[in-house]
């Protein structure tokens, strides 16, 4: 099922190196972030208000707080929906199935639905201009040797 087309060694090595570079960058960010936290707290164990990382942390916590609230709202909404929601019935549901907007008569519709192979012709504005049923499944691809069975519009 999975397709892994063989590629040049250079391409594969490039992908592997680029990915390794991505991981190194990630680890760098991780350690730099951890260092910033440790440095901010310093030897006293307290963060100085002058440290640039404090406002960043505050903003981050603010956004995380909003994200958590949103997650809670989402969960509460789902809970409410499951227990209280009455499904609004789609408007205008009826039995006008089949030909709406297709300029087809019921007979033509049945022809299309009953045939194994059909050719549909359209006009320039997208309306159905004609239908042909192909009786022989073994025919060639050109459409000239088939008898038109119906012309719509």
């Amino acid at each position, binding site marked *: *099922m999975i397709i892994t*087309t063989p*590629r040049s060694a250079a391409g594969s090595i490039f992908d592997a190196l680029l*990915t390794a570079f*991505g991981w190194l960058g990630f680890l760098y960010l991780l350690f730099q972030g951890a260092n910033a936290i440790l440095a901010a707290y310093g030897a006293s164990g307290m963060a100085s208000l002058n440290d640039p990382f404090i406002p960043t942390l505050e903003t981050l916590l603010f956004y995380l707080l909003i994200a958590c609230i*949103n*997650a809670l709202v989402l969960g509460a909404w789902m809970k409410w929906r499951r227990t209280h929601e009455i499904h*609004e019935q789609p408007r205008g549901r009826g039995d006008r199935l089949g030909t709406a907007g297709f300029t087809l008569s019921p007979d033509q519709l049945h022809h299309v*639905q009953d045939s194994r192979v059909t050719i549909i012709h359209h006009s320039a504005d997208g309306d159905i201009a004609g239908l042909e049923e192909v009786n022989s499944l073994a025919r060639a691809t050109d459409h000239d040797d088939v008898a038109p069975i119906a012309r719509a519009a």
Partner: protein
Amino acid sequence: MTDRIIALLVLCVMLGTPLGVTLMLTSHVLLNFVFFYPLFMSALWIAGGLFFWLIWERKWRWRPYPPPAFEGTPLISVLIPCHNEAEHGEETIMAALAVAYPNLEVIVINDGSTDGSGALFERLATRHERLRVIHLAQNQGKAMALRMGAIAARSDYLVCIDGDALLDPDAVNYIVAPLVAHPHVGAVTGNPRIRTRSTLLGRIQVGEFSSIIGLIKRTQRVYGQVFTVSGVITAFRKQALDQVGYWSLDMVTEDIDITWKLQRAHWAVFYEPRALCWILMPETLRGLWKQRVRWAQGGAEVFLKNISTIWRWEHRRLWPLVIEFLLSTVWTFAFALTVALWIAGRLVALPEAMQVALLLPPSFTGMVLAVTCLVQFGVSVLIDRRYEPSLAHALYWIIWYPFAYWLINLFTTLFSFPTVMLRIRRRRARWTSPDRGIKEST
């Protein structure tokens, strides 16, 4: 004319909002939005994915249990619109004919192909009783092909897949089950899994489809409305399609449009992660760019089409989707403005409030962003591994996926949004030849 004025106003608002925020507040606020909006969305998607999994998905039966069966075994029609699919069409049709459901017809719609697809389909039809072929004499586009397939279908349950997608053997049972069980459901979208994993881009998309698209779909289902079904695999109730006028012919992405049309008419759209469909995706930058520009244009077109009427009270449940789309678009322009201010600051003296000193996130913020993205992928592996047990093997390759995802989003939106808003009038959407993975060099 009114539409054009609205489109121009929307574009002005989108471009002007980040600039207005910077002028009224400071570039610091803009930077915070640029760095933390992805974090915020990530937290929401993780929460939504976990809710969906904890409350529903983990209790749903999966292999080795058999898929759901339906009383009376109603006929199901599988529609496969194709344009020049001589290379992949046979594999797709054979996979559709091989699904476990017994009462099935497969309708392949050959949309004016010129590569011999028509002859191939008819040859297959001579061998397989359940296969039917519709030829469109001239190329009409995917939406028209789907419409013609819907006309020809004898069933009220339509499973629509792309011409290069392979249905999993149980997919039809799983994807149609909600339509059979719930009369208010108009469409059910399935779980596309990527087959093409030869290049880094292909492998990154494995992470993207699980960690971002899969979690977004689950989150939106938890909320109750879906932004878009996956055009590559979705089941529709024909009655619902008939009511909303079927697929629009002038939308670049007919799947986004039909999702909104159905939900506006109060049909529910479900997500069924057990309905697996194996798909081919671009593996080159050029192919990926073309595909994502099309997706971004499609989103913008649907947004523009709905913007003036969506604010009616009866459509209130779609408002959060509109707001999310707006925020994502504003994020794009905010990011672009940040870069522009950073460059301008190096060339001329800017007021202090508009100066952008650092283009990359501060180390601590960067670390949090990176960790959050990995947590997101970890959650998606936890959820998706039962559908694809080897998913964790992709872990090594996904380190670039958050970066790639947001960057591609950035550039495609920057390109597509103004294009759509400034376009004079909509045109009929036609097929474009997608990149279906790389070929082996000889």
